[in-house]
Each structure stands twice: as C-alpha cells, then as structure tokens.
C-alpha cells in the first residue's frame, strides 16, 4: 500500500509514528493499574497545485483514503517540493523494557515519613519509532526510549509531588526521592509572608518560565508581530542569561531531525540577555521568505508547526540567602503568551532567611510581566537535568501577596 502511494507524481511524504507506552501505577507501593498503549499512526503530507495537504490514519489499508483526504485538507503553500532529507538514522538510549525491574523501582521510591496518608508512584516507559518516507526514495528513521518517574505524597495538610523523565533510571529514582524528601522536610510547618523578595523557582518551575520565553521565538508569530518579542531581537532584554537549543544532548526531547526532515542543530536563542533570532519550520520559513532553523514540529491536527528540542540554560550565578523557594506554582498554563503577562500562585514553597529554611509557605500571589522579571533574573549554581532541560534554578525579584 505504502509503496503504491509513493509512486504518485507529486511530492508526497508518509510519516509513520509507532509507539508503545507502558505505565505502572502504585498506591502505597502496591500495584494498582497497569496501562499499555499501542499506537501506529500514518501521517500523509502532500504538495499539489500550490497547496500543502495533510491527513492521517491508523492502519495501512486506510492509507489511500487518508491520501484523498490530504488533497482536501489543504492550506496555501508557496513551495513546489519538500526539503531535502538525506537518508539517515538517529537513535537515543535504547534499553529493553524487560531489563527494567519495574516492581523494584516502585519499592525504591518509598518515602518514609510520619503521618503519610498515601504515596502514589507512576513509572512510564515509552518506546517510539519514527520514520519519514519520501517519494524521492529518501528515508529517515529515529528510535528513542524515554522513562518517566513521578511520585506524590499525601500528608494531612498537603500533597507534595514531583516527577522527571529521561534516560537514566538511577538518576531519576534518586532525583524524585531526594526532591520529595527535601520538600516534605521544608514544609513541615507553615509560616506567613508578604512583601517584595527574591523568589527562587525550582527546576520544574524554572523550566515552565523558560517555556513561555520560548513562545516568543516562534517565527510565524514574530513575523505577524503577535508576540512580546517581535521587535526585541538583537537588543539586550534580559540580564546576563544564556538559552541554547541542544538537540543531541542526552535529554528527553533529543532529536536528530525535525518533523520536516531537516537536520536539527545547536543554536543560541538568548546570548548574554540578547534575543538572537526567531525560529522557523520549513513551511513558515517559505511563507515569510526565511530559512528553516530545523524547528518543524507538527501535531496530527495541524499540517505544520514550530517547536523546540532540548534546552540548556546558563546565567550569572548567585547565592540564594533570603526569600521564597517556589516548589509548586499554579497558573503557568494561563499566562498570556502574546503580552508575556503572568499571574501565578505559589501553592507550595518555603521561606528562607540567612540561608536557613524557616518554614513552608503557600497560597501566595505573584504577578507581573515576563520581560520585567527577566531583566533582573539570576541563577543558582545548582544545574540539573529536568526533562528536556539542563538548567539552574532561576531567581526573580517579585512582590508577593
């Protein structure tokens, strides 16, 4: 079926994404749910008569139907061909599931603390094989396995959770367990705070903030002047911070090529506080007369899109002696990505005075604009692998209520 379709006389690509996800869920170290998802999706992309078409299906016999659909699901497109792929293969951390002692991993994560009501642990193993076939005969293959570990501890007055993903099981277990234990200890007794202070964002909250910064680099939004960053490239906007995309670093979003089949490459997005340049996929680059930066990422519902692989962050290091550590923050998902306005609530954190934790804090509001926050941002020396990030904790100056 695939071979027949690849003979059509206009540019056509078939993307085959095969994945197997196995999740073990434990409640108080007792196995509760096992979930397995088996998925194989065929995405068809075609170029015909100045239009880019796309459609998808789940089994090989539906491919002809999906192809006809792709000729109707179209948007205007000013290129006559797909970008060159140059056949190759990329592979990241292939460990067989049978080698992973899942039940033992659940046990290793046991948190021992008084008054514990429930510990929930979730271990996910995801294996993906991604292939792009082109009717010029080119072929790309990417194989990747990622492990996710997540655990939450419910205590009488609070729930503390943390999760991380990557390739190194031992690191993930130690990281999740260590982080939970530290947070349980630091929030044993709650105290009150309001006023202006330094706020140290935990690694996961720092990554959430960086994620919002990255939205400002999406090429098509920059071209349409529909992002806070549209007129800020080339100027010093932030303090001395560096943000780099590192596609082949051993982090969970590693990718040798993007969804357009273009080779990914390392690039500096923020250089000593200066925004360098926006990023493009092949299709938006063509539309705005630019070159692709290897940032093509699409989801089934869209014919094309822009995204990032792994991210590394560096900055001016400083000691954190006084202020609030924000472990959990509510509201990052509701921030205004166009204006950069943030309205957040620290739902769990700790108050630090002269380098000592005084007690836990919660229910603290923190608002402002991303650009204002980043003008004075500093970082700690504590760099860590967190999902697709390798980053330190960010320190902001903010008014807390």
């Amino acid at each position, binding site marked *: 079926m695939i071979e027949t379709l690849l003979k059509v006389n206009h540019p056509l690509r078939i993307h085959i994404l095969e994945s197997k996800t196995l999740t073990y869920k434990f409640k108080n170290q007792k196995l509760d749910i*096992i979930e397995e998802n088996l998925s194989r999706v065929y995405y068809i992309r075609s170029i015909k008569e100045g239009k880019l078409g796309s459609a998808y299906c*789940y089994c090989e016999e539906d491919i002809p139907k999906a192809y006809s659909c792709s000729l109707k*699901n179209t948007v205007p497109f000013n290129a006559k061909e797909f970008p060159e792929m140059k056949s190759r293969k990329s592979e990241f951390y292939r460990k067989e599931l049978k080698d992973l002692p899942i039940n033992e991993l659940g046990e290793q994560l046991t948190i021992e603390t008084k008054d514990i009501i429930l510990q929930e642990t979730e271990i996910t193993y995801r294996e993906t094989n991604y292939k792009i076939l082109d009717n010029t005969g080119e072929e790309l293959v990417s194989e990747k396995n990622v492990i996710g570990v997540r655990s939450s501890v419910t205590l*009488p007055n609070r729930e503390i959770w943390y999760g991380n993903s990557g390739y190194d099981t031992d690191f993930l277990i130690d990281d999740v367990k260590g982080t939970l234990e530290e947070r349980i200890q630091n929030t044993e007794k709650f105290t009150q705070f309001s006023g202006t202070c330094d706020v140290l964002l935990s690694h996961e909250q720092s990554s959430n903030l960086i994620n919002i910064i990255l939205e400002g680099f999406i090429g098509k939004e920059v071209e349409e002047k529909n992002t806070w960053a549209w007129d800020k490239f080339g100027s010093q906007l932030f303090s001395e911070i560096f943000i780099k995309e590192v596609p082949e670093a051993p982090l969970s979003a590693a990718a040798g090529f993007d969804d357009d089949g273009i080779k990914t490459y390392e690039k500096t997005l923020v250089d000593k506080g200066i925004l360098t340049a926006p990023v493009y996929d092949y299709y938006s680059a063509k539309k705005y007369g630019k070159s692709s930066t290897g940032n093509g990422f699409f989801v089934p*519902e869209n014919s094309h899109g822009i995204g990032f692989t792994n991210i590394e962050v560096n900055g001016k290091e400083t000691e954190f002696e006084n202020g609030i550590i924000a472990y959990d923050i509510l509201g990052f998902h509701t921030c205004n990505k166009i204006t950069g306005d943030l309205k957040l609530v620290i739902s769990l954190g700790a108050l630090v005075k002269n380098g000592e934790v005084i007690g836990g804090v919660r229910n603290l509001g923190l608002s402002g604009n991303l650009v204002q926050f980043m003008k004075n941002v500093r970082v700690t020396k504590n760099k860590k692998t967190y999902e697709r990030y390798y980053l330190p904790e960010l320190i902001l100056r903010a008014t807390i209520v």
Partner: protein
Amino acid sequence: MDLDKIASYLDKRADYWDIFYEETETFSIALRNLKLEKYQKHVDKGIGIRMLVNGVIRYLSTETNEWSVIKNGIDRLINISGRGSCKLSEPSSIKDKYELSAKFPENPKEELKTLTEQLQRGKIKHIYVSYQYEKRRSVFINSEGAEIAQIIPRNGVFYEITARENGKLESLYRSIRSLEESAFKRLNEDIINKDTNAVNTLLKAGYVRPGRYDIIIDEQLAGVLAHEAYGHALEADHIYYKQSILWNKFGEKLGEFTLVDSPETKGFGHYKYDDEGKPGKTRFLIKDGILQEKIEDIRFGKGGSGRRESYEYVPIPRMSNTYFSEGNWKDDELFSEIKHGYFLIGVSGGQVDTTGGTFQFDCKYCYEIKNRELGNIYKGTVFVGDILSTGKNIVGIGDKVVLEGGICGKQSQGVPVGDGGPKLLIKNAKLGGVE
C-alpha cells in the same frame, strides 16, 4: 472492530472487563487575518479495554483492529504478576442508545470571515479565528451485559485579538462552545463590543496593586470558582484518598450557596450515560451551604460521573456541568455593597491544589469599583483563594445563571464540561498584582 470476539476472549480471563470503542469525526478551520491557516477533517478511532485481574486494573488501548495485536496485548497485561485491592462497585448492566442531533453551520469559513470583519476595530492588528466541530460516537460493553451506544456532537468558535500601539501589545481571546446548536449563534454583538473595546482600552491600563479587596466576579468566573474550588475537591478519588480539604467536611456548612453538578443539563458537559455505562444524574454537591454529595465513578462510588478524554484513558471521576444556583441579588444591589474593590471579568484559566485547599483563577481584565460605581479598567489579575474561607466570604449571589462550555484537564485528560453561575460578591478576596 469485532467487539464480540474480544468480549468472549476476556470472559474467561478477567474478573470484570469493559470495552470502550470510540469514533470521533472532527472538522476544524482557522483564519489568521482573513488568510486560511488550517483546514482539517479527520476521523479518530480506537478501543480501550479495562480488565480487573487479581485486584489490579489492566488497561489496553490501541487504534489497531488487528486481532493478533489486541490478543497479545491482553495476554501480556494479564500475565503481569501483581495483586492489588482494587474493586469496581455496581457496574452497569443497561442496554440503551442515545443520540443528540446537531445543527452546525453549513459554511463556517464565511462565518469566520464575517466574524473577522466584526472584530477589526481600533488598534486591533491581529485576528485569529477558528471553528471546530466534533461528533463522538462511542460504544460501551462490559462483562455484566451492558451495551450503551451514544452519539454526542459538540462545536465551538474561538477568537484571539491583539491590539498594538507604540510597541505595546494587548490581547484577549474568547471561546464559545455549544452542544447541539451552532456556536456562532451564541456569539452576539454585545460580546464582540465588550472584547474589542476592552482590548483597545487595555493598551493604556495598569496593574492592580496586590492586596485584599471586596470583589464581584462575573458569571464565567463564578463557573471557574464552582469548578476549581469545589468541583475538583469533591471528586470521589480525591475524597477517598484524603487528597481533598473537604474529605471530612460532609454535613458541615461551607457558606450560603448551592452548587450543582448535572450531566442532565444540556450544557457543554452533557451526557446521558457516563463512560462506564452508568446514567448521569444531577447531584446537589452543596445545598444551602451544607456539603452533601461527591462526584463518583464505579471505582470510588456508585458511578454516573466516570469519564475519560478518549479510549486511551481509564475513566476517573469527573465533573459535567457544574454551577452555582441563582440567588436574589440584582446587579445594582451587588455593586452598591462595594466602597472600594474590583469587578473581575472573563476567564483566563484556573487551577486547584485540592489537598492544601488553594486555588487560583485569572480574569481577563477588571474594573475598579469606587464608591459603588465602575471606574478605570485594569489588566487581568489573579484571585488567590482557599476553599474553606472563600465560601464563607460569598455574601451576595446574583439572580441570573449563565453556563459556559470549557475543557477540564484533570490528570492530563481533557473532557468537555460546563461551568457557570450568577455574579458573586466576595468579601476580603486576595488579588495578586504589581506594586
């Protein structure tokens, strides 16, 4: 997909099983500044098989219809050793069909063009509009003999407008969702006027100073309060594991309001049967301030609220249409109570920590209330609340309930819900902001 073949294979192997087959037809179209940005029509289909073996739930989901793949998946999951204590109580044995018919727009592209033209006002330079409909057909069968087929259509229109002046940007978005009728019909001139005026005026607006104020929240925000603060805290899984600050508060008085969750109401979260084949029923979660009921699936109660995003997920207790019942305060009576405070308008989003009892929701913008009258407009702010004290601080309840559609993302599973209520007057509310 041969469900009977799968069923007879499971009969001998699982203590309880159910199969959820789903086929969802989706159409979406988007214009950016009048240019076509997206046009997609798809059919997603797949199957979710839940098996209870040795007290452990084993769940297989796949899009494939190849029997060998399904059979191998079932065998593999059943053969994983492990004993648990999971039970499912009173599974459904109902046989029924339910179908809602829809009157969706015939030419959504033209309607989006007209909408774009209506939104082009003042300093608005960027307009993104989109429309989507989906028709979800599901079949549920289980080891107790249940056979439920449901077809539920939903549609929605979305816009995002960005105003720009002297390098400053302001942006607002709106989603209008509807069950049976065209979502365009719910979008009127008044809504468009309010949004376009607001985004233009906000270019010169400042931030609210952080602090405690008396506030009035509009009907949309009342819906988010109902959903985030109370609804999630009353989901039976959170109650069972004491992951809700309300787990031991049944029978206690939380305020002077009534809160309802009703899949029977024809809001965006409507269904006749939940995703476990149990009939949806109206629950008075809080009646006249007294905490009464929780939202149950068959794992943590008697069911009726077991829902899932799709066949890929195990059902969990979820809300449907959740709203505050109306009170008897007229708008001018609500405003006349405030000497200095804010009127919060429109939802940007919300989130809750049910165990600690903290919640937040953002408004799109707000007006200062000075001496009982509306004053200057301000940028959106965040309401930081805790579940127990907020209810007692609701001192005025408006007389008109509005129900809006939304998507709830509990445990990363998006399900359609309705949220609503009348305007609410809340004393001593904590608002985040900028000095």
